[in-house]
């Protein structure tokens, strides 16, 4: 009988201003990976992107995103980009002080020798009047190598601030 489990592989709570976080040497012993983030950066921008790269690869990232900022909705599409740009977003200094964007990113079959589909979502409702947002992203990584590292870099020329959290979970089907 299947007995799915979700195991925390690693977590990082930042002790200071940090430009990027890399999870390296990810073991291939799980079926899927899940990232959970609570982040904020030091730039005066709402919904600043978080750059996502697998294995430091610089090609093959495509994504389709539905985005809502306050009452306005958009759709976004990138193809064969150099990183995932829309799947994860972070708050900036224009958002309510000491609030953090909440994001999730799911990677099924990360260790397989096939291309990978991914799913990302992020939500912010920090009780201010201008800067609530929500993103949902379907992504595709056109690369057949097993994913062994994930690098998350703050967008713009900004950095993640202290107390931003990064959790990486491994999920097994049985």
């Amino acid at each position: 009988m299947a007995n799915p489990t979700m195991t925390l592989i690693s977590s990082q709570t930042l002790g200071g201003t940090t430009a990027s976080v890399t999870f390296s040497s990810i073991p291939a012993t799980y079926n899927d990976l899940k990232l959970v983030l609570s982040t904020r950066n030091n730039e005066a921008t709402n919904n600043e992107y978080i750059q996502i790269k697998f294995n430091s690869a610089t090609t093959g990232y495509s994504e389709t995103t539905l985005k809502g900022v306050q009452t306005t909705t958009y759709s976004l599409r990138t193809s064969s980009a150099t990183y995932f740009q829309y799947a994860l977003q972070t708050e900036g200094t224009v958002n309510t002080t000491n609030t953090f964007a909440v994001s999730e990113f799911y990677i099924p079959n990360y260790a397989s020798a096939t291309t990978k589909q991914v799913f990302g979502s992020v939500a912010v409702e920090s009780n201010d009047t201008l800067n609530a947002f929500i993103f949902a992203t379907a992504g595709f990584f056109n690369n057949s190598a097993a994913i062994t590292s994930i690098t998350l870099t703050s967008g713009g020329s900004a950095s993640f601030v202290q107390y931003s959290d990064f959790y990486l979970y491994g999920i097994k089907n049985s």
Partner: protein
Amino acid sequence: MADVVIVDCTTGEVTTRPQTAEEIAAQKASAAQAQAEAEAKAQVEADAQAAKSSAISKLAKLGLTDEEIAALVG
């Protein structure tokens, strides 16, 4: 200068070091590219909105009511 955090998920070892000049340059280049793409997209959206406003104005001059225009263009 901001730090870079690297977590080895097999050993649990965490390395924290300053960003290298190369990493800073790469981040700035990505930011510039993203900014250019955002501005291009914003211009496309602004052009589309201007075209819509122009079309609504012309429809009104043809005698369509606000309800009829809304039925056509939303």
